[in-house]
């Protein structure tokens, strides 16, 4: 294994004899500082949400009334909103993002064109959330409203669909927010998945072709499983962003505090609730909003755990491949 402080042979590398320990110390300090800072933030959030936890307990999660003037706080509609919007967003953007990542890591097109497409997609990451919100208002809301009118008419009598597509149907709704969120998280999935795919050792790809596999068999059976850790990390980061996105969602989701299962109706997410109310909140409302942030962190933890399970499954198949 590594020989940390051995004096090395001729070649004048003796100057690095002390190096490794020193660098390890620096990295260790960085790690400690990172944990300390982030843990402090988590601690602060927990501390601030304590009065609300003490008062509402787990009932906070299942109560569906949010009334600041009467000090009654419950986040069920927003929890469902977060779940549904993030789920739809990742459902749409994971396949699309992977498709583009594969497209960019294979040689369908010459490198200059690939680079251009890659930077164009990454440009999406630079667009401020406010602009996504504005684009959503101008472009997506009218489309969803038209679709809503069509869906309401056609699905009125179909069992499951008529709950999913029920009135009131304004343009600002869960569906609108989900679609725009999908676009917002696309660059994350594409960029990180692409990076994961291009770092797969070329020998694996060549070996697969040598065995007679087609391009797509190689992609599905060799490349994707090998790049799986990166792709899972990309998905988790993207899902995290989707769950925590405040501004664009607040502008597009209609912001209703009523529980609804219809994709066409206004609703809310935990993050948009935070964005809308934080500035004007005081007292128990602030504590409740911090409790909301705590819930978001727990949700992220859940997502991460699912990611680990997925990863363990794929790692079993590709153990030792690096």
């Amino acid at each position, binding site marked *: *294994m590594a*020989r*940390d402080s*051995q004096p090395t042979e001729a070649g004048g*590398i003796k100057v*690095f004899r002390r*190096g*490794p320990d*020193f*660098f390890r110390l*620096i*990295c*260790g300090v*960085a*790690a*400690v500082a*990172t*944990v300390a*800072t*982030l843990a402090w*933030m*988590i601690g602060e959030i927990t501390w601030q949400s304590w009065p609300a936890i003490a008062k509402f307990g787990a009932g906070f999660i299942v109560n569906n009334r949010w009334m600041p003037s009467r000090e009654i706080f419950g986040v069920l509609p927003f929890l469902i909103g977060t779940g549904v919007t993030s789920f739809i967003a990742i459902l749409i953007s994971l396949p699309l993002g992977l*498709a583009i990542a*594969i497209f960019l890591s294979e040689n*369908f097109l010459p490198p200059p064109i690939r680079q251009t497409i890659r*930077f164009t997609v*990454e*440009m999406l*990451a*630079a*667009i*401020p959330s*406010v*602009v*996504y919100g504005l*684009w959503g208002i101008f472009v997506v809301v009218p489309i969803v409203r038209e679709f809503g009118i069509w869906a309401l008419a056609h699905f009125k009598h179909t069992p499951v669909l008529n709950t999913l597509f029920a009135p009131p149907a304004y343009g600002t709704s869960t569906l609108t927010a989900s679609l725009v969120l999908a676009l917002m998280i696309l660059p994350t999935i594409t*960029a*990180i998945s692409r*990076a994961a795919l291009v*770092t797969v050792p070329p020998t694996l790809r060549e070996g697969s072709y040598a*065995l*007679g596999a*087609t391009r797509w*068999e190689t992609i599905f059976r060799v490349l994707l499983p090998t790049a799986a*850790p*990166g792709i899972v*990390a990309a998905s*988790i980061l993207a899902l*995290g*962003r989707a769950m925590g996105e*405040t501004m664009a969602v607040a502008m597009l989701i209609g912001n209703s505090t009523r529980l609804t299962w219809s994709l066409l109706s206004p609703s809310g997410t935990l*993050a948009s609730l*935070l964005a809308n109310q*934080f500035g004007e909140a005081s007292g128990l409302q602030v504590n409740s909003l911090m409790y909301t*942030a705590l819930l*978001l*962190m727990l949700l*992220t*933890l859940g*997502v991460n755990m699912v990611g680990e399970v997925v990863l363990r499954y794929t790692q079993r198949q590709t153990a030792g491949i690096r």
Partner: protein
Amino acid sequence: MENTFTENLDFFRGANAAGSARRSAGNRLLNVACILLALLTFVPLVSILILLLEKGLPLLSWDVFTQLPPASGMEGGGFGNAVVGTLVMVGLALVLAVPLGVLSAVYANEYAPNSRLAHAVRFVAKLLTGIPSIICGVFAYAVVVLTTGHFSAWAGGVALSLLTLPTIFLTAEQALIGVPKAYREASYGLGATTFQTIWRIVLPDALPAIMTGIMLATARAAGETAPLIFTALFSQYWMHSIQEPTASLSVLIYNFSSLPFAHQVQMAWTASLVLVILVTIANVTAQLAFRKK
């Protein structure tokens, strides 16, 4: 050996002869599907870019970098101070978050992957991937603004660094994992120390992927409003020091886009266009400079 090899190849070819036509048809189908999906995604992407250009280009000129923001009801003006503010605060954020994130990832992946410290860093980083940006602002407010007694670019930089730290750490870790073990083993086999291996072999190989993560985080930081409103506030004037309220492109866009005056709303679009251009330039430069050679 030779014969076995060719026999095996024949075996493969023969066994799959019946399915090979189906396989290559499937292959072509997937090619088409992949290209179609990619094109499908470009539709909204292009839609946003067109909207951005359509609304933002008219007011784009060198004035926007040299003039101060126009007050409501006034025409002309620019947002030079906001450009400077964003550059400064994102720069501060990177100065704080990049060393912390990358070096922590090095520790957690190279030096002590199974230690409690490594698990702790991973845990807190993962916990915070879904955090709304407003919380980073609130925390930085409590820690910096309340302590110093005023809003400042410092506080804004701290808030943004908190926002980007989890992403930088997690993508850096992924980048390090992506470096084949064989490289490290070869390096140790040649007698290098851990430090030399990391510094000369692992990090350079992982650098492109690390840069991708850093640029993604930077792009997000440059475009976020909520963390900056509670920490750097805003300013209508040129920046004098990092100890005072500072303008930023994202807060400018947020302010102007919510006004009922057409000129200011249009300025917001131009500012968005400038922000996207600046971040893209930074992205392209950084990734081209640090690509695998």
